[in-house]
């Protein structure tokens, strides 16, 4: 698998599992889970510093930006203006030009507002950002995002944090066939088989947070996801057998009594 690197905007990634850093018990658990997952891209959110309690530790004291690619997101942004503002703040905070762009449309589903997403992506690409957009499983929107200049597209598998798994494999498959940039399936994964399935479909990577952080044993689930993503990728590259309705014997008939 060493020659099977994922390359986005000239950056090379060794792992095809990307992970979020939210919802963990503490930073020690976050750090351990990320290590075990094998991920080299981790997402972070941008928020106000707690100015009254300075004893609070910094996430980046645990997640070394020299070792991991830090991918700031615009989670919680419901307008183009907010998403652009948070992206600029993330860049000003000084880790990179990368941004996982989210423009959400609705609090209950957290589905992306794809019209707003396209508008925000246009602005940010012009400003030199490397925009990785969190989008719906809509091939037409995905293509528009690529046309704008997004070097990868991140369609959802199911609503964020839902754990419902791959709800629309056919749309995702169409996106993977139509779109000529890496596809990172983002959000909705519940367990290891979901991650493997996404990779078997041909996803270039899978991004998840809750499936690991919310598991009863997050460290064990991080390890399971590490294997699942690798297994799914290998199976995709190996090429699965066609589905047939009836049996095909795998032992020869010749030589039977």
């Amino acid at each position, binding site marked *: 698998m060493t020659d099977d690197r994922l390359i986005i905007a000239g950056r090379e990634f060794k792992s095809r599992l990307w992970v*979020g850093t*939210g919802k963990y018990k503490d930073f020690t658990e*976050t750090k351990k889970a990320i290590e075990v997952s094998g991920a080299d891209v981790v997402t972070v*959110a*941008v928020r106000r510093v707690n100015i009254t309690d*300075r004893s609070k530790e910094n996430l*980046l004291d645990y997640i070394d930006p020299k070792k991991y690619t830090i991918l700031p997101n615009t989670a919680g942004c419901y307008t183009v203006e907010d998403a652009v503002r948070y992206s600029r*703040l993330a860049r*000003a*905070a000084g880790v990179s030009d990368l941004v996982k762009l989210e423009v959400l449309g609705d609090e209950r589903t957290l589905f992306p507002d794809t019209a707003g997403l396209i508008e925000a992506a246009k602005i940010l690409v012009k400003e030199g950002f490397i925009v990785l957009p969190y989008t719906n499983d809509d091939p037409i929107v995905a293509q528009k995002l690529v046309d704008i200049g997004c070097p990868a597209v991140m369609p959802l598998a199911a609503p964020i944090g839902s754990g419902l798994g791959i709800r629309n494999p056919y749309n995702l498959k169409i996106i993977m066939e139509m779109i000529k940039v890496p596809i990172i399936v983002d959000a909705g994964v519940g367990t290891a088989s979901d991650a493997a399935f996404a990779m078997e479909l041909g996803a270039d990577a899978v991004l998840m947070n809750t499936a690991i952080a919310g598991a009863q044993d997050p460290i064990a689930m991080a390890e399971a996801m590490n294997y699942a993503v690798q297994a799914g990728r290998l199976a995709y590259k190996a090429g699965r057998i066609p589905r047939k309705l009836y049996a095909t014997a795998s032992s020869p008939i010749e030589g039977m009594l």
Partner: protein
Amino acid sequence: MQNAIQIHVNGQVQTCRCDATVADLLQDLEIRTERVAVELNLEILDRATFGQRQLKEGDRVEILSFIGGGSL
């Protein structure tokens, strides 16, 4: 406090010296300047200018950093 001004930092009222700069404010709050972003009255500041940007009465300062997050 003489020659003191009131500003808003992350939504909270904060008192500081009238000649304080953004860099002074961060130092007073014991915030390391690496990996924070500072917005002064909605303008995102270049880190290199923290020492030159003087604060004035009523300024709105936002200091942000990275926290754990996946999606939300």
